[in-house]
């Protein structure tokens, strides 16, 4: 078990998300940065679907009550064991009563704690990804206990040759495809989207990132249609909203762009006032 001494700003359990429940209106969810979350599982020799802890902006303080191995990836948040700095993207041996804590956020916005065998929270609809109305717990809370597999029989794999690509944490460029309503924009508006450096507004979370500035347009709403994480909607007031992992399954705003999978990972490491550019 892990005892949560401090939960951090916003920490959740995430995995690959829910597949097959969108037809009931259930969001996909899953780790915002799929690259970093899968990187910790790879380092630990876990299955891809093993659950990780997603931590946001400031890290938690956790006490491990059984030996295990962990790995940390994503945003640079100065992780420490018993007050001593530990390496990113490496498997770290944990002894009974070791305490994991974090320092200042230096770069990026979300980090991932992987643990051998994955976190054992209660799954709902085929996934452990926390989501209100679907899982019993929606956020990791102070003084709660989190289960994981004790490390006894498990071989401690080391994947030292795997190199983590940190450049995407810093990258401004988001690779996109044209969205279904892209061609309803005028040529000038289309070019404007790719010539503009957008800024992440203060409204950003696991559901969506709102961008600034707004753009003038005369597109009308569409008949409610499917959307996916990474869909960029254009609101009547001209704001671009990038839908993220916890987004609704359908929407009525024109869908002007669609982020690639890697661009969703990149954007999930951005915070208020960070700059981005769309690239076809």
């Amino acid at each position, binding site marked *: 078990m892990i005892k949560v001494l401090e939960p951090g700003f916003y920490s959740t359990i995430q995995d690959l998300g829910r*597949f*097959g*429940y*969108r*037809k*009931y*209106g*259930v*969001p996909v969810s899953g780790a915002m940065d799929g690259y970093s979350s899968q990187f910790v599982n790879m380092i630990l020799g876990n299955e891809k679907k093993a659950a990780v802890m997603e931590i946001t902006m400031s890290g938690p303080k956790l006490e491990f009550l059984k030996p295990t191995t962990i790995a940390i990836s994503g945003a640079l948040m100065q992780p420490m064991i018993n007050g001593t700095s530990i390496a990113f993207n490496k498997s770290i041996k944990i002894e009974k009563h070791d305490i994991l804590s974090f320092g200042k956020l230096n770069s990026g916005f979300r980090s991932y704690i992987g643990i051998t065998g994955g976190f054992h929270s209660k799954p*709902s*609809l085929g996934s452990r990804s926390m989501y209100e*109305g*679907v*899982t019993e717990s929606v956020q990791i809370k102070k003084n709660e206990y989190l289960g994981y597999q004790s490390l006894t029989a498990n071989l401690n794999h080391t994947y030292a040759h795997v190199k983590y690509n940190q450049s995407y944490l810093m990258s401004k460029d988001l690779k996109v*495809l044209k969205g*279904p309503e892209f061609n309803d924009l005028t040529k000038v508006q289309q070019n404007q989207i790719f010539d503009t450096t957008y800024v992440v507004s203060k409204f950003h979370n696991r559901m969506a990132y709102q961008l600034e500035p707004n753009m003038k347009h005369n597109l009308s709403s*569409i*008949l*409610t*249609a*499917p959307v*996916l994480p*990474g869909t960029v909607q254009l609101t009547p007031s001209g704001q671009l909203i990038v839908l993220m992992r916890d987004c*609704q*399954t*359908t929407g009525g705003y024109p869908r002007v762009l*669609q*982020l*690639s*999978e890697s661009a969703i990972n990149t954007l999930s490491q951005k915070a208020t006032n960070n700059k981005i550019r769309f690239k076809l």
Partner: protein
Amino acid sequence: MAFKLKYTAYNERSILIEWPAIIDEKILKNILLFKYSIENNFIKQTIEVVNAYNSLLIIYEHTIDNINNKIKELKTLNWSLNGELNIKNKHWAIPVCYDNDFAQDIEKYSKEINCSKADIITIHTQPKYRVFFTGFLPGFLYLGGLDPRLFLDRKSVPNLKVKKGSVAIGGKQTGIYPKSSPGGWHVIGNCPVELFNPKSHPPCQIEAGDTIQFYGIDKAEYYEILERIDKSEFNLKPNA
């Protein structure tokens, strides 16, 4: 009836198929035939199909190497649709309490559309509403068939909290809030029945293509149903 369909790559592992952009039961039927045909021809674990009024989104579990080949594959399937495919749609009777205690907006709404409360209930419980799809929130049904006499634009300022079970009208649509959420629709009643339960299989019994009809209940019946739900004695059952 043949519709002109548009196929596009939506992302690295999804294909969007679009029908003409109108709300029409014939289009829904066509979309659902295609949907069942896809579901019957692929392994469910590797594909997910979502529909809305005039679209079908096919999401593959893994990135597709050649999206054009997949589109060709889907186009071949469409031809096989000429064969008879039996869709068994269900009909559901849904209890709604229109008591003022559950209908926070009915007084104002009644004045704005110039229709008495009794008439609103009669008109609202008359049609068999067609379920086009589920979206917005887990278990939120998009229904077609609202009587035009009940049309009223959404509130300009949405409510921060619309209570779970609220039955409401927004623009040309009516719907039930499966959980408490912000919302801009006019609330005219409340449905005690749980429309989405993650512990049930499936979590939502009512599906695209089904029909529903509301029937009015009084407050005593409303609380009786809640009690029975609490004891797991109430199950929504479809009519044949």
